[in-house]
């Protein structure tokens, strides 16, 4: 049938099965051992970051953390599939991918700590701010890629979203604009089975999310999202196509959100423990460890080295987050617009007065709890 190349296969692409065994695929080659080792290191670090961040929430050092525990193969796969000049458009759940792209963990956590709305220099790292309003960032990715294409740059953009986000109108508009304008974007949907409490079955009646691609005239692909080798291969193909001016691709990864939506969520209300338990056996780390051990690439020394590296990252996170940052209240006004208006200056002035009175009161040893408390 015509256009069949746009349709995903019935089964997700897998290169390493849940036991670590190689799966031979006619279309997608197994990445080399070095690549897989680098990916494994990323998975170890990513898992450690997830678990450290969750611990920091329990200790009250982070306001909230949407963990990607269980989705690390997607996170690391996305980060490694990109070149240095490529751009990532992540969501709130993609802190591990953001960090894997080079952002310091403490900077990646600024949003979740509550210090500011975003904490890293997006231009330095080529990582857009983590988006909260669902699917909105997909359009930004399209526009960004459009500008790059117009300038003749060979930048590729990877835009991340979840299964739930595919239901939003912005998802549709982003896919369509990308296809019509033929821009170098890879849409990477991490289908982790849930949008907070809502299961995939309530999100779509389609054979798969990747089947949406043909409706835009772009290729759709399904990949085992817990198999980093497959993720790298499928994203790699899509990134190559984009870079070669072949247009956008929609890639759906089948994975699972192993923890609650965030620490504030109680997932016992809406899913069986047995379901969660069943996914433990498909853990992305375990299978890659098994595979790399089987092929003799992962030695005990390397394993120890990776663990130590991950531990260092975790220690740095703890240190950074256990220190209270001094946030200047005047930042509320500093960045609203580049042009300063008398209207805002007037309000800023009022705040400045309150801040000064509060500081004076504090240093005057009559510290008060409320701002402007020097009344």
């Amino acid at each position, binding site marked *: 049938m015509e256009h069949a190349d746009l349709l995903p296969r019935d089964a997700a692409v897998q290169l390493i099965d849940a036991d670590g065994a190689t799966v031979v695929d006619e279309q997608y080659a197994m990445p080399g051992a070095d690549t897989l080792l680098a990916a494994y290191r990323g998975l170890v670090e990513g898992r450690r970051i997830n678990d450290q961040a969750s611990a920091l929430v329990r200790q009250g050092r982070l306001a909230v953390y949407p963990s990607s525990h269980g989705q690390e193969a997607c996170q690391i796969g996305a980060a490694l599939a990109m070149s240095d000049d490529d751009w990532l458009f992540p969501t709130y759940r993609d802190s591990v991918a953001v960090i894997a792209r080079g952002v310091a963990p403490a900077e990646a956590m600024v949003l979740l700590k509550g*210090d500011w*709305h975003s904490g890293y220099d997006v231009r330095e790292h080529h990582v857009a701010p983590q988006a909260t309003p669902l699917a909105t960032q997909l359009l930004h990715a399209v526009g960004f890629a459009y500008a790059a294409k117009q300038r003749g740059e060979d930048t590729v953009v990877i835009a991340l979203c979840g299964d739930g986000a595919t239901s939003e109108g912005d998802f549709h508009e982003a896919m369509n604009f990308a296809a019509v304008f033929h821009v170098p974007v890879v849409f990477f949907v991490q289908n982790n089975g849930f949008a907070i*409490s*809502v299961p995939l079955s309530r999100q779509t009646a389609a054979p798969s999310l990747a089947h949406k691609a043909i409706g835009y005239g772009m290729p759709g692909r399904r990949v085992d999202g817990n198999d980093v080798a497959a993720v790298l291969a499928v994203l790699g193909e899509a990134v190559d196509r984009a870079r070669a001016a072949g247009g956008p691709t929609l890639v759906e990864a089948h994975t699972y959100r192993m923890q609650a939506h965030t620490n504030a969520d109680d997932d016992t209300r809406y899913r069986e423990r047995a379901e969660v338990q069943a996914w433990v056996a498909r853990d992305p780390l375990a299978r890659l460890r098994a595979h790399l051990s089987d092929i003799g690439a992962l030695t005990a020394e390397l394993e120890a080295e990776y663990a130590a590296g991950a531990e260092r990252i975790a220690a740095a996170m703890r240190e950074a987050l256990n220190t209270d940052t001094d946030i200047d209240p005047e930042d*509320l006004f500093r960045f609203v617009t580049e042009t300063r208006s008398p209207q805002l200056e007037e309000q800023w002035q009022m705040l400045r007065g309150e801040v000064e009175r509060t500081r004076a009161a504090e240093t005057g040893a009559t510290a008060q709890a409320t701002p402007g408390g020097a009344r």
Partner: protein
Amino acid sequence: MTIAHDDVRVDERSTSVSTMSMAAALNLALADAIQSDPEVVVFGEDVGALGGVFRITDGLTARFGEERCFDTPLAESGIVGTAVGMAMNGMRPVVELQFDAFALPAFEQIVSHVAKLGNRTRGVVRMPLVIRIPFGGGIGGVEHHCDSSEAYYAHTPGLTVLSPSTPQDAYSMLRAAIASPDPVVFLEPKKLYWTKGEVDTSVMAEVGTARIARDGTDVTLLAYGASVPLALEAAEVAASEGRSVQVVDIRSLSPFDDATVTAAVRATGRAVVIAEAPGYASVASEIQARVFERCFEYLEAPVRRVTGFDTPFAPPKLEHWYLPDVDRVLDAIDSLHWEDECREDES
């Protein structure tokens, strides 16, 4: 008791008073509405098994079944747009949008259809639907979780915009909203979800009326939502400083209860409007302008307002610098040309 003057005790059922949180009062209002009207349906994101991210719909699916309370795909325009169609076909949808900022994708449906279909069809099609939105700050939420969007809705003709500040009003006003033949945007001050108070379930609120929350003779504070307890707190402090402060809970942001507010401010001659939202072109500006125009001859001093800044909402760590607080309210009261001071601040 905090029952407003205009509210009515519905006879159909016996009085039942108990103490509960605002969240529980809202939950009870939904349950009672579902039970008393077969056309009421509750839906939105995560309102089913989870009971909503704030648990306002807790237990409704278990108790009344999927037909009466259910989860939708994740799409706010879809939620409101299908609610419009259901309302056209005889249902009374009560939808939940998870946070203020996540109501925005539904804005076209709300403005172009929810607000206008009744008018468009010359009243043949009414829109008896309720859009519930947890609104405002004060809970340390990250960006997009703490906005106050009431101005967008209040400015839109055809929408009724309500916000309760007590468990009693939460119950009585939500029941009234669901019973209304007209579309209601129901803004729930999320900071107050866990505050407790007595609730008399036999009371149905009168839409469009304000509530005198505290009597006072020197100055009137006009507030709604989470700013009402703030106003009451400021009034308490001011009382200790010798000023008698009246507090009016606006609670119906649109339509506006001019009669109550005008009478209140004419009596005291001084007023301060308090709201969390950015002040510019806001409900607070409207109240300020109305009061000014209607009470001009009675005012001892300009009406002041204490609002959020005209900046995006603050990150959690700076939230307390952004939100109106007792000191700012007291400062505003102090600026109201008291006889014991010389007037000199009009420069």
